[in-house]
């Protein structure tokens, strides 16, 4: 019986005008997004290669000069633009994408200047995620908002129910066919996009990409299911299809426009963090205290004589300053991460925000990817440091007084660039993606079930006359 209902509903959807328009719109937007991605990804990649080769050249130059210069110089590593950015760009253009480090510390992160055009009002990338968040949610509602109230108006509902079919079967059938119709449209869009990206884009298909596409389909199905459930809900609580449409639109506005756009407000007012000026003040105060406590002569320096006894004092003082600043800054970064995570959890109120988090996890990008790179950079910095210490230990002309900020009292011999450890960005593993996304997945499944249940309760009590 269920299959009969689904088949009937599916055919009803397929022959409808909304299906045709949705299909045309979705294919057009997917194609536009893919063309735009293909148009910009080559240029972005070229820019990145330039940045990366400059980074390598600087490192090579420093290594050829002096190992200590290599160790103490602050360098900026820029993250590579993702080749699967067309699935979910995760607003990477506006997120920090460069990490400042030396062998002694990972200092800070920033959004590399020139990444986004400051004169162009911030906008969404036409990625699959954006299209799905906006259009899939919309058409899922459009396919379901009059599922019950519309049939009541066309007087077929009473007829259907006169047959030996339970209300649960009918509702589930409408739900399943709504999701299936939407996914058919999405699939057409995705195929269009994939063809364009693979033909015009810089990289061919890979197995990793195939996995991400499947994952994206899965989370999009969840999004479609969520909005189909909301559509059914508005269909059973409104007396007429006109009203249920307005209700559905209100749901959509709240979830796709209002909640995601109030995140900054939520972050600043519910989870405020210390201002960067206040943090800088604390660092300066810590520096002042260290300077006062330092034995006299700590600032003396003679670059011609590494073994000048005061250099040991200077090295100690600089090390303490580094540790003090690192402690304060790293704690501050933790409050930033916490603020971001909590804000995301609050905006999970909206299925669209939930979907965006899930899609980000599927494509292994955005904030998650930055956090991984940030952690990996700390591991790399540890490797660099032990590499440098081993170089210094082998040098008899070095007093071995570690000064993390200046080239004063450690080895001054050059080192072969080939021996220097390099930072390599690793793609995120399945566990790294799925782990942080799990709680959002659970929330989403709970929301779908709860809303569908509500719709079912509403339908059971629905007056079909």
């Amino acid at each position, binding site marked *: 019986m269920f299959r009969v209902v689904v088949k009937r509903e599916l055919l009803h959807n397929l022959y409808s*005008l*909304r299906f045709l*328009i949705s299909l045309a*719109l979705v294919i057009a*937007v997917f194609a*536009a*997004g893919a063309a*735009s991605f293909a*148009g910009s990804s080559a*240029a972005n990649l070229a*820019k990145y290669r*330039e940045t990366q080769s*400059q980074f390598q050249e600087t490192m090579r130059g420093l290594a050829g000069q002096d190992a200590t210069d290599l160790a103490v110089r602050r360098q900026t590593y820029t993250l590579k633009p993702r080749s699967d950015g067309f699935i979910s760009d*995760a*607003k990477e253009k506006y*997120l*920090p994408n460069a990490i400042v480090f030396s062998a002694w510390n990972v200092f800070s*992160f*920033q959004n590399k*200047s*020139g990444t986004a*055009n*400051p*004169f*162009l*009002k*911030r906008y*969404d990338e*036409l990625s699959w995620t*954006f299209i799905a968040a*906006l259009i899939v949610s*919309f058409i899922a509602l*459009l396919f379901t908002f009059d599922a019950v109230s519309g049939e009541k108006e066309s007087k077929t509902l009473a007829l259907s129910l006169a047959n030996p079919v339970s209300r649960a079967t009918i509702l589930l059938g409408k739900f399943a066919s709504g999701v299936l119709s939407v996914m058919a449209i999405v699939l057409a869009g995705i195929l269009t996009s994939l063809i364009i990206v693979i033909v015009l884009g810089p990289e061919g298909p890979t197995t990793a990409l195939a996995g991400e596409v499947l994952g994206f389909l899965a989370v999009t199905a969840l999004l479609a299911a969520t909005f189909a459930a909301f559509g059914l809900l508005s269909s059973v609580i409104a007396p007429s299809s*006109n*009203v249920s*449409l*307005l*209700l559905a639109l*209100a749901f959509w*506005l709240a979830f796709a*426009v*209002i909640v*995601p*756009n*109030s*995140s*900054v*407000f939520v*972050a*600043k*007012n519910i989870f405020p963090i210390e*201002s*960067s000026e206040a943090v800088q003040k604390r660092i300066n105060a810590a520096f002042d205290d260290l300077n006062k406590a330092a034995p006299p*002569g700590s600032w003396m320096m003679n670059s011609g004589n590494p073994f*000048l006894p005061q250099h040991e004092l200077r090295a100690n003082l600089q090390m303490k300053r580094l540790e003090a600043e690192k402690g304060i800054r790293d704690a501050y970064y933790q409050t*930033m991460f916490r*603020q*971001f995570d909590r*804000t995301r959890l609050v905006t999970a109120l909206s299925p669209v925000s939930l979907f965006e988090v899930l899609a980000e996890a599927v494509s292994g990008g955005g*904030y998650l990817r930055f956090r991984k790179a940030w952690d990996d950079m700390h591991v790399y910095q540890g490797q660099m440091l032990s590499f440098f210490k081993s170089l210094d230990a082998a040098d008899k002309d070095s007093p071995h007084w570690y000064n993390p900020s200046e080239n004063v009292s450690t080895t001054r011999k050059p080192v072969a660039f080939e021996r220097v450890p390099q930072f390599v960005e690793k793609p995120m593993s399945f566990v790294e993606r799925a782990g942080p996304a799990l709680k959002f997945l659970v929330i989403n499944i709970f929301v779908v079930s709860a809303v569908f249940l509500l719709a079912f309760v509403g339908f059971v009590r629905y007056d079909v006359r």
Partner: protein
Amino acid sequence: MMSGEVQAREAMIATIVKKDFLTNLVSPRFAIGFVLCLVLIPFSILINISNYRDRMSQYRLDRDAAEKTTTEVRVYSTLRPEVVLPPDPLSVFGKGLSDQVGNRTRIWLGDKPFLAAGKTAAGDNPFLASFFSVDFVDIAAIIFSLLALIFSYDAFTREKEDGTLKLQMSNSLSRSTALAGKTLGIFLTLLPVLVFSFLLSGVLVLLSRDIAFSASDWGRIVLLFAASLLYLAVFVFIGILVSARSKSSVTSLVVCLFLWVLFVFIIPVVAANFAESFVGAASRDNLDRVLKDIDKAREEEISRALKAQGIPEGYSCWWCSTSEDGFVETYGDSRDEFENFHRRSMVSEPIRIAYADKRWAPQKAYLDSLARQADAAGAFSLVSPTGVFRAIASAVCRTDLAAHGRRMDRIRQYRESFVRWLEGKDIFRSYGWITPTDPASFKTDDQLTAERTGGEFKTLKEWEEWGSKQKDARARWVKLNMVTVAGDSPTDFPFLDIADMPRFEEPSGALLSGLEASVLEGGLLVVAAVFLFALGYVAFIRFDVR
């Protein structure tokens, strides 16, 4: 006879308007639309007032810090005023670019104002930059268009389905009269919602103690209202056209909603994406490299000039601090050392100022390429009425790119007047550039050594000979600090008197300034409205009422 006909026609239109108005008023869509406005408009205004408050307090901090660094200087070489601009009160309605372009610009000698600095929308946490936010203009663009379509999509189809249209047409009623009545009825229903939305936001702004609108700001809100009305009209006519071309209400509704999503949400994003992908902006890395080369050339030129005049580049000072952009501040030196600092600055600073022009050429090319890309996005989005409306709104709120460009131009002019002021004082040739010490009180090394060691050493050479025998390097310096000599440290001098320094002043915005382009865009909306209405009229004439 004729006038009687006109009167009858007018009466008929009035009847239709009244009937439609009343039907609409009691419909659930009016209630839901009204509630949407009631919730969303205050939501956007309150969020943006809170945002404005944050930016204002940040502005006050920045301004005070800038004032401190500007006025608390003792030599002219470290005097670099910083321009800090307050947020525009109108940004509460349309924030435009205001939270992403920065509001602080320091005036340098070797560099013209390029990109403004300052905290952006993200505030202290750069990750928040990945969250977007909406303002009144965004909400208005979404809601007003939706309401316009919701009320017009079934203008004819519903009456056709109800069978009342046939009835109407069997009376001696011309189709143009019916259309005029319908249109006016819809406008009459929507106008109160629009007025209410603006009044509500106006009241919220008035009630907020943090924000003060000037008379011309309120005038601009009236302009925004006019633009909204025009925008609303365009969507009403789109709805009427679709309705007149559709067979059933459901069809008309589906088409209208898709047009809504397309115009309001998709086209603006596609426009920005296409601009970004197909109108390339210059590479920042490349610019930085070019600028680095220019800086290198400048340093070489300064070095050559110093060599040509036989001025030594190295120095040994009692107290000095040097930094980027020619900062030199020094105290307690010998006459010769002071003289060398002085001669160096006399040579280097005019070269530094001349090189600012050389840096500006590539900088301007870079800024132009960014502006070209943004303008292309703006031009592409004119395809959608929403794009036109947003462009007008951000110009009205003085938060568009053009307003930012004008502001930066004025700051660049201010830099010129600041440099002229320095040159007018002939300050590079004065010792005041590098030290507040009176040239008449300059001493020789020997005099200074004698004074500082309390007469223990008569000449510098004597102290050096003694010092070379000392094991502990520190002990040598202790001797030189036996007696504190006036003028050896910065705190012995007062801050500069810079009362006559030119200050940056922003002209108070005239009501209509900077709206030249908006007139054209407004004209575009009018043309679109008239054109759509004409199409709707033709479609309705040919409408099959059966």
